[in-house]
């Protein structure tokens, strides 16, 4: 399971308003490159590893955000595989997934949990 279940540290990253709706950004959270996404119109917050396992490049934050059915997702900008924003599961290849981090907004600030 790649969703981080045992969080040891919560790290404050930036203001929620720094995030552009439906456009990802990358944050350094401890030793992790984390891709943060704020979706619209629901203003939900998601955090995945920025690492694209298909290309080996750290680029998922630069993909286009959208939906497949009811699932919010991001498409890798390199080879266009889709990843479920809630779980990190690859929607095109069930054998592949990336880390999904818990993330929440506290007093207008984005906080990400890392193991």
């Amino acid at each position, binding site marked *: 399971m790649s969703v981080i279940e045992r969080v040891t540290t919560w790290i404050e990253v930036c203001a929620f308003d720094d995030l552009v709706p439906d456009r990802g950004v990358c*944050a*350094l959270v401890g030793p992790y490159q984390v891709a943060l996404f704020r979706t619209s119109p629901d203003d939900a917050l998601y955090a995945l590893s920025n*690492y694209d396992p298909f290309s080996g490049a750290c680029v998922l934050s*630069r993909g286009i955000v959208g*939906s497949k059915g009811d699932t919010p997702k991001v498409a890798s900008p390199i080879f*266009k595989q889709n990843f479920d924003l809630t779980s990190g599961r690859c929607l095109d290849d069930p054998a592949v997934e990336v880390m999904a981090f818990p993330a929440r907004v506290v007093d207008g600030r984005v906080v990400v949990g890392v193991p």
Partner: protein
Amino acid sequence: MVAGNGMVGHKLVERLLDRDATTDWDIVVFGEEHRPAYDRVGLSSLFSGTTVEELSLVAPGAYDGIELHLGDPIASIDRDAARAVSAGGRIVTYDALVLATGSVPVVPPIPGHDQPGCFVYRTIDDLDAIRAYADGRRVGAVVGGGLLGLEAANALRNLGLVTHVVEFAPRLMPVQVDEGGAAALRTLIEELGVSVHTSMQTTEIVTDADGHVAAMRFEEGDDLDVDLVVFSAGIRPRDELARGCGLEVGERGGVVVDERCRTSDPLIYAIGECALAAGRVWGLVAPGYDMARVAADGIVGGDATFTGGDLSTKLKLMGVDVASFGDAFAATPGAETITYSDAVTRVYKRLVVGDGGKKVLGGVFVGDASAYQVLVQMARGDMPTPDDPARLIFPDVEGNAPLAIGVDAISPTATICSCNNVTKAAICSAIAECGLTEMGGVKTATRAGTGCGGCVPLATELLKDELRKAGVEVRNDLCEHFAYSRQELFDIVRVHRIVSFSELLASHGQGRGCEICKPAVASMLASMGGGYILDGEQATLQDTNDHFLANLQRDGSYSVVPRVPGGEITPDQLIAIGQAAKEFGLYTKITGGQRIDLFGARVDQLPGIWARLIDAGMESGHAYGKALRTVKSCVGQTWCRFGVQDSTSLAIQIELRYRGLRAPHKLKSAVSGCTRECAEAQSKDFGVIATEQGWNLYVCGNGGMRPQHAVLLASDLSSDLLIRYIDRFLMFYIRTADRLERTATWFDKLEGGIDYLRSVIIDDTLGIAAELEAEMERHVATYECEWKATIDDPERVRRFRSFINDERPDPTIVKLPERAQHRPAYPHEKPTPVEVLQ
């Protein structure tokens, strides 16, 4: 029981297995050679790298449940007892016997024909013997200039021998090709270093003191010194078994069979080259396969018939296309011929038509057989014949556009996905067998499109075409969020004056959008004069290339291409590019479009690089966008002795007019200053070639994956009229093309082809010309350099950073030295992202 395990004997076994014959029959196969069936047609490829295993037609396990005796031919047949005995003494009682013993090459009984150094060309063993003998020897000759003789000559050539072909008839391939075709073929083959001697009858093989081949002697002319001779002067059916047991054979050989391939003994069938079927011996594999099908059907109780085969041939001899089909010699009463012969490019095409040109009867092709497939279909009546079939063999010259041919016309054996080597046939059969309706399914089933992805539009077109043919309603929906095609959406946006994606999604879509519809809608909004593409919501619609105004590379870095209009660049600009590259450690390479690409920039470096370039007077080249890329040019009359117009000035004018224009796909252009066409304008989406009187405008050409020649839209235009036609053409394409559809593909699907396009662009039959021109004027008036607009605004520069919470650059972008510059590290050459940060 099957006597013979060649190509046709093997096909019979396959056909029997297809019909589940093993449940009722024990199948016993005897073969003379020590190998199971292999592809005899491809024999000469053994000398150019193909292995014996690759030639095999029998997959491991394919003969499970079948008794196969190799190296043990049938020696005699006792018809009264329905029993056959093999050379090795095996006795089999049969309920049905199929003779598939093939043929042997004819060796003329001239003196010396059986001396060491004389060979035939039929089996792998023959080739092994030739190879062994040729070692250390220099010159080889083939007796016979037919299809097989030329194959054999190719084999000798591949062995590195000086090669001669000696033909008794006055021309090569006398059975398939007419005089003109044979002359073209001869020129092409001689250019490959093979000496051709026609009208020469070999009377003796002269040997040296040891009895080895030393020379050939002819009825006419001098001796030819050779080290080895291969006889390939026709075939003789292997009918000894049939003769031995009293079956009827033809006067000149061949076991006589009826329409169901049965011999004069109803228990015995004969198929392939040993059979005399429908009045002749068929020396090609396709009719043999057909006979195998008929015999297998007869054995399991069917009544299929063979009434004559197709002698159409298309092959590559030493890399030269040669094809002939139907009534190639115009023997049909009333037949007429149309001949195209180009002595410069060595292309010869002859089309035989009947019924006053309304019916295709046959044809011959040498050097270019691209029209073969379509014409054969027409000759068979499987495809309607156009009013003027001659157009199919003539090249694209003024007023004579090639007929528009869509994916349907792509050969089944054509490779669609070159990454995974998937053919059109493989994709089509996967679609049919697995009932696929989506591109995702095609990818899973065939792996097509899972490599670089470049073939996905073509494969999708194929899928739609197959579904359409199968009667499935094909929705041309953009994606799951919009139940409209790109063209329909474009009209919706235009008519309802929609200015944002969310507005369009709310009124005509569902869900949240995706990586397909978002950039497509962004492109539509931009081509309708939307201004800066990265403000507000527009920013969220863009692919990363458009978002960072640079081209993403495999390691997450970007490349930068400044615009170099018409390929004209000043020394100061060259210096500025060089200085920027040095300062930011970028790898530089000249592009195919007369520009310079700077690779390896991190996102945080992009604004700094552009500040330098803009200072030096340069602007965005839009290499990242589905937009006008480059207008290539030659120097034209300004410098060139042959130029008739100023092509560079026009190229610069065109590039500056259409720079930044967003389209369904990228747009490339070129201007050539004379008919020599050094700028390759005919391979571009729109290209211009100078004439003494003005400019010729070509449209819808393509290089790249599926090269296609552009079509002449109009000739001898003034500069003003040229620009107006290009305005109309580009806007019409932008309005009506599908997402990611290049002009060439769009044109192939355009009903009415070039005539229709001319009527819209030149005659304005739709009455939209003024509107199209006005749309283009709006684009030209609102153009601004996206990079200048970006670096002038600190707010817009802010997104160019690796991390939102840290000023450090991305440490996972690692470069390694290569040839005095550097390249990005491959993933295995660098630590994982977490390791880097730890």
